[in-house]
């Protein structure tokens, strides 16, 4: 069995060979990333690599640094050390290829805006400061809403939406950015079953279009059904790779430690194997 560190490290080391072959650079590559709040490291010396056109879940217990990792990738928190590259470029040169879906609870939904206004925010790079919103823009925003099943809510005040509907609006805003890499922070947290189904369908569509999806995910029971790759983290990178290889009782034990009973893991794998 390989040392836990060797998996992500070896991913990073392929860098040299990548340059030599015409293979596309990873959609996301993180090397030696450490983020601390105060004097408490939340993410410690993490390496990560996500190939283009894949769908990856970032998994780990509460407080394991999942969201922080995502935020550091996006430059929203300043890392203590480490490097992030998106499509082989630094963040500043790859911004328009990345879309971010923050946690729903991170904003105050009591903001004077309609659903369509929020989706139009995703078109900001085209609209800029003063360009008028033209019918073409509105059509695109409506199309994004339709993709998440929210076309009838375009003029609704955002504060009147349910949690699931708010999450769909956030996804529609990200769709409007038509990015190549989608980073989602807990997209299924606190949403209804129908929304969860709708969101995963959209994500799989995006994946089929060749786009890359990375989502912080906390529900171990759905990982096999939703994702093909997973990245297990608990401050340190624990394991990374195809779900089939990484989603083992031993790895989960290493990530969750005492927080996950062995019976729980065994039951989950058994329950997952049936469908």
């Amino acid at each position: 069995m390989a040392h836990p560190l060797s998996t992500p490290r070896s991913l990073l080391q392929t860098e040299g060979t990548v340059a030599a072959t015409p293979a596309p650079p990873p959609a996301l590559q993180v090397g030696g990333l450490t983020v601390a709040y105060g004097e408490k490291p939340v993410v410690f010396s993490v390496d990560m690599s996500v190939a283009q056109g894949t769908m990856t879940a970032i998994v780990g217990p509460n407080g394991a640094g999942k969201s922080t990792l995502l935020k550091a990738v996006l430059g929203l928190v300043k890392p203590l050390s480490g490097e992030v590259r998106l499509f082989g470029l630094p963040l500043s040169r790859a911004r328009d290829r990345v879309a971010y879906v923050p946690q729903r609870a991170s904003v105050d939904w009591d903001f004077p805006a309609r659903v369509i206004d929020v989706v139009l925010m995703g078109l900001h790079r085209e609209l800029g400061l003063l360009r008028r919103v033209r019918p073409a823009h509105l059509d695109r925003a409506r199309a994004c809403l339709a993709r998440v099943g929210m076309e009838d809510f375009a003029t609704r005040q955002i504060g009147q939406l349910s949690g699931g509907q708010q999450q769909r609006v956030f996804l529609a805003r990200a769709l409007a950015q038509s990015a190549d890499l989608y980073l989602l922070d807990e997209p299924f947290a606190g949403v209804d079953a129908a929304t969860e189904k709708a969101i995963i369908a959209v994500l799989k569509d995006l994946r089929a279009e060749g786009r890359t999806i990375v989502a912080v995910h906390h529900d171990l029971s759905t990982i096999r059904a939703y994702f093909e790759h997973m990245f297990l983290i608990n401050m340190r990178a624990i394991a990374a790779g195809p779900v089939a290889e990484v989603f083992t009782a031993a790895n989960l034990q290493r990530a969750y430690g005492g927080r996950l009973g062995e019976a729980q893991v065994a039951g989950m794998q058994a329950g997952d194997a049936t469908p």
Partner: protein
Amino acid sequence: MIWQALTLQLGYNATLVAIGATMLGIAAGVTGSFLFLRKRALVSDAVSHATLPGIGLAFIVMVALGGEGRFLPGLMLGAAVSSGLGLLVIGWMIRRTRLTEDAAIGAVLSVFFGAGIVILTVIQSMQAGRQAGLESVLLGSTAGMLRADALVIAAGGALVLLLVMLLRRPMLAVGFDPDFAAVTGTNVARIDLAMMGLVMAVTVLGITTVGLVLIVALLIIPAVTARLWTDNALRMVGLAGLAGGLAAFVGAAVSATAPALPTGPIIVLASFVLFVLSIALAPARGGVALLLRQMRFRRRVHRRQGLLALAAGQPIHEPFTLTLLAREGMARADGVPTEAGRIAAAKALLDEARWAALRGDPAQGLTASRYDGLTPIETVLTPDQIAELDRHLPRPQAVI
């Protein structure tokens, strides 16, 4: 002159005023600590500004009844009534409308103050109001303070202190965790009300000395200053009282030497000086100590990451890591590890592997939670435990 003032040699009256101000400062610092712990520091700004219309109306009523308009207890009563009304309005706005606390505070503060200014201009046009000099409530003045007034302030400050002593436990509980306090049977709403009542009392007492525009400083700055020195809530309350009392005493004494010096601003500046000194000097949470600790922390992180990279035979990209390792003799400037570096790297890698094993063991949840990527495992486990752990390591360490 200033020395004489500080040693209370400016006569009976000045001494009395200094004592009154000191009592006020202690009461304000202590009360403000609880307000600060409850994260409602700026509510006091609304409370103080909202006193103005009450002061004005009380003056008008007392004059209309044929009394002395500047009778301090009467003005205090008016101040208390209108600031109490302001507090009720803030609470109503937060509960019943979509406005947030900051907007409610700002709206009440400015509108009540505006109404107070209107009433002040009415008073100025009154016969008795021409010499009222009520403007002194804005910035405070101890010049010409009556002996009785100083006594009222000192006694009031002592009373507030007594009440705070009685209520300290429930107020701390509510400030620390209101939900838990509610579950354990504390009436949070009533304690909050009592706390705001005490804040109101301090404000009302402080109007003549510090002035209503600046009294909020006496509630906030000593509390923030004390917070820098300790993590213990009760000790913080005591230190805040000390800082508030000291600042108020210095302010009152200095302004007694020169009538042109308004008391309020001097007290505020004195407490700010204490705050700045604390930022510089406080060992626990002071800014300088914090900065040094953060720099040391950053070095530890980079050293550890560098060693792990050396152990894995990876190149080190970060210049800071490389400089650090080179300076400590762990690596050459081009990143090749020295002998000492190799040994340290192997140790770091072993430590990391032991931690990984520990963290994967469900029975070790509590110990494993102390992992921060930096703490050597020897500090949390005994040699016996480590030996036991090593037997479960995936592979004997032969990295170098």
